[in-house]
């Protein structure tokens, strides 16, 4: 019933790209976290979250993303974002999240920067 977030993954060790489609609310955030923790276990230390298919997020969903960032900092890995709507990007700046997770315009730019 509740519109579920679709999450797909493209593994390119040590990097992985996570694609989302839909609303990142409580459940959506948890779904992303589940996928991210699996990837971390599988030794992916750089995660790129491509939010092209997500037009709306809420602060509960974002809080779960902060958990993932914390985890990445612990393992010396990193989480980056690309394809954010202007509002999601603005929100990340309001929160100061942009200091701890890089934001790229699109996947090409992100991969260029993250794989050097």
């Amino acid at each position, binding site marked *: 019933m*509740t*519109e579920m977030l679709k999450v797909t993954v493209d593994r390119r060790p040590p990097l992985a790209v996570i694609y989302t489609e839909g*609303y990142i*609310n409580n459940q959506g955030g948890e779904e992303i976290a589940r996928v991210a923790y699996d990837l971390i276990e599988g030794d992916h230390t750089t995660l790129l979250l491509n939010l092209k298919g997500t*037009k*709306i*997020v*809420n*602060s*509960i969903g*974002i*809080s*779960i993303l*902060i*958990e993932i*960032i*914390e985890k990445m*900092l612990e393992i010396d890995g990193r989480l980056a974002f690309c394809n954010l*709507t*202007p*509002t999601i990007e*603005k*929100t990340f700046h*309001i*929160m*100061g*999240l942009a*200091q*701890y997770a890089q934001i790229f315009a699109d996947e090409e730019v992100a991969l260029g920067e993250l794989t050097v």
Partner: protein
Amino acid sequence: MVDSTVMREVTLTLPMLPDMEIAASKTATALAEFMEMSSDKIDEVRMAVVEACINSFEHSQADDRKVEIRFVVLGNDDPERLQITIKDSGVGFAPDTVERPRIEEKLIAANKRGWGLTIIKGLMDEVEIHSGADGTTVVMSKLR
């Protein structure tokens, strides 16, 4: 607040149930589109509406499990401002005592929540919160 006349007023009553904040965000979109707000601003309004709704859903403990939302298009000749009032009849809270969250702290804290009001204030042009034993009313507005 700028003095201007009510051009349109729409009210919406929502149950405090999962995903119902989306209904509020769509109604907001219709009015913002009517005003010919830019799509980026519409998106900002949508997100603020979602945050205010889920705050009522999560924190109000209102017995009636309902949120009342009033959308008002204000303007003298043309629509100038979209004002949105989100009201619950819950337990209320003291807005002044809510600390502004800091990302450095949240990153190491157990509770990473507490961003809703900060996001609302960051995305809207004006925000007023009235809260007390009768519940909470958030009045927020965005200029076209």
